[in-house]
């Protein structure tokens, strides 16, 4: 039952993809409905699955497995089977719902947003492909399959980012996204190889069992930590953690609904999901590193977001920093909080993007009508005062903003302050006080820049009256998803008590799994941690609320009431301002270091290939003669020069030898007599 349902959920989107990619054009505009229909069907199924699972068998994990490949009588391991299969537990079903839900909403939204695009069908096809692979990631029960779907979401995001492939920037962004992810996957792949080499299986269950049984890859704890961290590299790539966060902002080149679905709600969260899946086998050091990575990411992303003007860029950076939050949460062991934040964030960040989308849509239409192609439809400096013109968008946007800033009564508040509590507890246990500090700072920053965004976009005077007059509220198809998401961004979906998630159903179904790594590598025990959380909870809550409030207030003073001029602030900030504006120069230096570096190496090696190796091949004396001359010589002598191995030498010696052939009999005879004597003297044994 579960299995069939989940398989249905998994393959419905794929079906959509198939149909659209091959018969898309034939469907004559019905393509969108088909795709959306299939997706919503999947949504229904996953809701059913959710209910069944949570009511039926909340605390058992079902797996369904079949052999993909079997190596009979392999050396040492006997018969080695590579399994594929699905695993269903509470986390899975919840994630299923989240993904299908957001995906469906985005489908709906896109039907309006993308209307009239010349690759309309293909767009929905790609969406289908993405949903399929995302669901795959969620459902899989083993690392290999995880990796496979991992790559597949990568490729579908590549396709969607590069959807406007005529734009160079778009394709660049797509390449960047894919390659940066590849770097992460490289680590992940090695991690998987280590585990496979150690336990010759891929499936989580088997892995954890054998680790729990005390085996270690290559018998060393170092390798265990390493494998954990290497697999985390995959997460770093996908979830755009430092140092691989650079691709996400560029990924905004894709259509806005895509950004909402992939680069805010679901795919980027896959990294978090991966860490959650691997959580039991992560050693203490690994977790610590993970936590710091997350924290650091959150901080720098937030600091960058403060100064951005492109509406989508701001959201992108905020996404990064929120993801950092989740990673940090998992790192410190606030497992449930992290997951919860993943879900709440999915809702309100998707909402934010869709809202931004509807703004851009409106702006775009206006600009298009006014034949204005200079002004950037995404630059918040060109907006302002939209509040009056597009109320629905505005109010939903407000809700989302409140949620992300962690204001009470919103979902964001619940999860975020659990995370902060977690970090606080963690530091209280083993004195890593930097983590909560960063957490709080980021909370403040978030509140600030989100309200900055809100104010600049909707409040105040418009940059151009002409534009403002043209603006219209977006059509129903686009506003409905917004409302739905806004609703989902309120607290009561997650727990009855607006000030404490732990009481809610969510905490009851998602529990932090037991760590199975050898004792000396275990992070702090669960109970210990829970108590610590309880003790710090109230204090953290107040702190966070205050900080959020401060942030919001500051935002209003600067941008609404203009008490403080932003420019002066920038002046004051100096270095920080510059750094933040330029994304702390990551892209710049990455480009110089890696891209140009690689290309340079490539060119050098190619030169080496053409000249040196061929040179060597073209005969030893070449080295002396000099490469340049060689290649010239090749071209001039054409084929005669190219008795490869021996050409140079043999040609030369051949020439010398034919010099001996003087054509004078007597010279010949001299040679004969000479060689006669030589033979006599040389080979005589006496």
């Amino acid at each position, binding site marked *: 039952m579960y299995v069939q349902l989940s398989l249905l959920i998994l393959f419905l989107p794929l079906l959509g993809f198939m149909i659209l990619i091959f018969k898309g054009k034939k469907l004559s505009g019905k393509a969108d409905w088909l795709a959306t229909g299939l997706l919503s069907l999947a949504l229904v199924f996953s809701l059913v699955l959710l209910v069944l699972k949570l009511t039926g068998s909340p605390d058992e994990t079902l797996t369904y497995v079949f052999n993909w490949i079997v190596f009979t009588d392999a050396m040492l391991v006997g018969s080695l089977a590579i399994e594929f299969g699905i695993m269903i537990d509470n986390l899975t079903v919840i994630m299923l719902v989240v993904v299908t839900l957001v995906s469906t909403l985005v489908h709906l939204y896109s039907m309006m947003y993308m209307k009239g695009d010349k690759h309309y069908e293909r767009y929905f096809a790609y969406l289908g492909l993405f949903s399929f692979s995302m669901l795959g990631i969620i459902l899989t029960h083993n690392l290999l399959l995880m990796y496979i779907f991992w790559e597949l979401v990568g490729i579908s995001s590549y396709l969607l980012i590069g959807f406007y492939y005529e734009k160079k920037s778009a394709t660049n962004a797509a390449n960047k996204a894919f390659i940066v992810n590849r770097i992460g996957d490289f680590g992940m792949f090695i991690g998987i190889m280590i585990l496979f080499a150690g336990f010759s299986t891929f499936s989580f269950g088997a892995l954890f069992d054998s680790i729990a049984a005390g085996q270690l890859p290559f018998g060393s704890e170092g390798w265990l930590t390493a494998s954990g961290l290497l697999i985390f590299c995959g997460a770093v790539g996908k979830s755009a953690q430092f140092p691989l966060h650079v691709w996400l902002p560029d990924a905004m080149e894709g259509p806005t609904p895509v950004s909402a679905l992939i680069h805010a709600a679901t795919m980027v969260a896959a990294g978090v999901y991966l860490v959650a899946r691997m959580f039991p086998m992560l050693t203490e050091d690994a977790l610590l590193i993970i936590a710091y990575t997350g924290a650091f990411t959150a901080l720098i992303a937030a600091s960058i977001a403060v100064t951005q003007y492109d509406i989508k860029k701001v959201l992108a950076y905020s996404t990064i920093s929120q993801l950092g939050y989740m990673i940090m949460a998992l790192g410190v062991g606030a497992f449930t909080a992290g997951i919860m934040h993943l879900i709440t964030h999915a809702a309100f960040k998707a909402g934010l993007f869709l809202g931004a989308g509807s703004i851009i849509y409106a702006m775009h239409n206006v600009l298009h009508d006014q034949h204005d192609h200079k002004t950037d439809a995404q630059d918040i400096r060109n907006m302002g005062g939209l509040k009056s013109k597009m109320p629905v968008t505005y109010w939903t946007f407000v809700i989302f903003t409140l949620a992300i800033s962690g204001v009470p009564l919103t979902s964001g508040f619940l999860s975020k302050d659990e995370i902060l509590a977690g970090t606080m507890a963690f530091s209280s246990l083993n004195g890593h006080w930097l983590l909560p500090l960063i957490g709080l700072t980021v909370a403040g920053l978030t509140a600030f820049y989100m309200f900055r965004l809100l104010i600049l976009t909707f409040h105040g005077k418009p940059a151009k009256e002409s534009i403002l007059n043209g603006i219209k509220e977006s059509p129903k198809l686009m506003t409905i998803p917004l409302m739905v998401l806004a609703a989902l961004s309120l607290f009561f979906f997650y727990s009855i008590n607006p000030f404490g998630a732990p009481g809610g159903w969510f905490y009851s179904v998602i529990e932090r799994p037991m760590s199975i790594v050898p004792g000396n590598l275990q992070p702090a025990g669960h109970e210990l941690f829970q108590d610590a959380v309880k003790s710090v909870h109230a204090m953290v809550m107040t702190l966070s609320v205050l900080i959020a409030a401060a942030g919001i207030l500051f935002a209003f003073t600067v941008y609404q009431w203009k008490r403080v001029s932003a420019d002066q602030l920038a002046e004051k900030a100096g270095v920080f301002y510059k750094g933040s504006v330029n994304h702390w120069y990551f892209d710049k230096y990455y480009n110089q270091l890696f891209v140009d570096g690689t290309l340079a190496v490539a060119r050098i090696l190619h030169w080496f290939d053409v000249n040196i190796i061929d040179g060597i091949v073209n005969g030893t004396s070449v080295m002396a003669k000099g490469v340049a001359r060689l290649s010239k010589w090749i071209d001039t002598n054409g084929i005669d020069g190219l008795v490869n191995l021996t050409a140079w030498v043999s040609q030369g010696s051949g020439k010398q030898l*034919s*010099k001996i*052939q*003087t*054509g*004078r*009999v*007597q010279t010949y*005879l*001299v040679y004969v*007599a000479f060689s006669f004597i030589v033979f006599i003297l040389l080979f005589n044994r006496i």
Partner: protein
Amino acid sequence: METTLQWLASPGLPHFLIISAMLFGLGLMAVLSKRNVVMVLMGVELILNSANINFIAFSRFTDFSLNGQMIGLFVIIIAAAEAAVALAIILNIYNRFKTINLDEVNLLKG
């Protein structure tokens, strides 16, 4: 000293052989050094003769007896034949090149 004198006093096989060796060397010399083809030919004759001296010396001093002379006979005949043909060819050359200097007849080389 005594022995040397004695050795000189009774000319035996080695003496003849040494003469033939000398002639061989001289013949070779002529062959290698003379521009004129005819001279080269004479050198060849000399070489053949030196060989002949060997044969006949052997026929005298070893139990090879008359066979040596026999072979000598044949060699002389061969020499004659060869000389005839050679001279004919040289004439031909002269008709073509108007010279019989070896180093001036040198189209084929390399």
